């Protein structure tokens, strides 16, 4: 499929959160210069992602798993001479990618733990014993029903396809 240049995607992003700042991007590459994800993965490049959004390549941007290689260190957001909120825009892009089901598999386990236990790391019996030996109180017991209700109300359960664990 040939890529068609359009301003539609840029306009869509501009309406969301800190998205408007993308209009000030002049493609200098300062964000990429200090980006640890680019340095180590070689394939991830925030300047290029901003460029693809400006050119309107929506599908390609959102479906590319490379989008999830950013570590969220926020160095780009601090460094951009144009005040583009690069990492905030990346969060917007990832939210949109999630809506079309394009997000890393391992996050499903995180969602399940969060909604089953209220903690993404619920801990084990061994940890409980160790805590007792150290004289520490029992681990927090969040009200899972409240978290689930709030998650449901914001559409998060439908979004992630979460299914409660079998008792």
């Amino acid at each position, binding site marked *: 499929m040939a890529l068609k240049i359009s301003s539609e995607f840029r306009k869509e992003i501009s309406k969301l*959160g800190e998205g408007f700042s993308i209009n000030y991007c002049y493609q200098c590459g300062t964000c990429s210069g200090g980006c*640890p994800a680019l340095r*180590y*993965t070689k394939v991830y490049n925030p300047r290029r992602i901003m460029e693809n959004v400006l050119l309107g390549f929506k599908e390609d941007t959102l479906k590319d*798993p490379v989008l*999830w*290689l*950013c*570590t*969220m*260190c*926020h*160095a780009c*957001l*601090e460094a951009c001479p144009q005040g583009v*909120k690069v990492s*905030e825009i990346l*969060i*917007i892009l*990832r*939210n949109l990618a*999630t809506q079309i089901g394009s*997000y*890393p598999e*391992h*996050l499903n386990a*995180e*969602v399940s733990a*969060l909604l089953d236990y*209220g*903690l*993404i*790391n*619920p*801990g*084990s019996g061994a*940890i409980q014993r*160790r*805590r007792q030996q*150290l*004289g*520490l109180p*029992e*681990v*927090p*017991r*969040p*009200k*899972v029903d*409240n*978290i689930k*209700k*709030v*998650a449901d*109300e*914001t*559409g*998060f359960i439908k*979004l*992630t396809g979460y299914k409660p664990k079998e008792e």
Partner: protein
Amino acid sequence: MADYALFLGCNIPNRLPHLELAARKVLPKMDINLIDIPEFGCCPEPIGIQELSRDAWMAMAAINLCLAEEKGLDIITLCNGCFETLRTVNTELKNDGHHKEKVNKVLSKIGKEYKGTQNVKHVLEVLYNDIGVEKIKANVQKELKGIKIAVHYGCHVLRPSAILKTDDPFQPKSLDELVNALGAESIPYLRKMLCCGTGIEGIDKENQLWMVHDKLVQVERMKADCMTMLCPLCYIQYEMGQLQLKKEPYKAQFKVPIMYYPELLGLALGMDPSELGFKLHRVKVDPVLQKIQ
């Protein structure tokens, strides 16, 4: 005594209880009173849940903020991730009526309302801004003389600086000064501001470990006795990372003890090492303890 609601998050209580032990035993010695709210849940985590849905992340974080409001307490966090989530959401809800209205509509389903009456602080801010370097110095019983320490801040206590407002986003000095206050020496090293890479651990473990590797190389090169930090996720990367880096393709033999800052503070305040959970460190800290004796 300043009262704080202790926000433990997921990783400290369930993976690194020795960090919790250090916080609970040492912080009260500096007049920080930690109060448990057992209903606190996951913050939720800012580099996974926020990426899926920022709206859901904000609303779930607001539950925790409400719990602290109900007790009339400010929150203290021991983790950069918890801090970023709770500080960001608290700031946005306080300043943006539209967000607040949206979140409160959701919270009404569980009989809660966010009001915006409390603050969220990282333990680094409490130690540096509220207690202060001078008071810590005055309380040191046993100077950590001759101990060279490589300080690691972790990204999410510093950036985005416009919201977090803790220190300079690229040239921070608070934790260095807190280390020097103990009589130890914070040493300069290359890659000091390199991220631990937790955010891509689930997707690209191999390159994430190279990030850990490259920082440890610089720490060893400067002959640091240990690293110190205030984030459990960074802690896990640098400690467990040393075990993982022994294998292919890295084949690296690092032996850099990783100390949680409250542990160092405890030792300097004169606590006996047996009172803290040093046995649970996966990279032995004995060389540091021997040097302090």
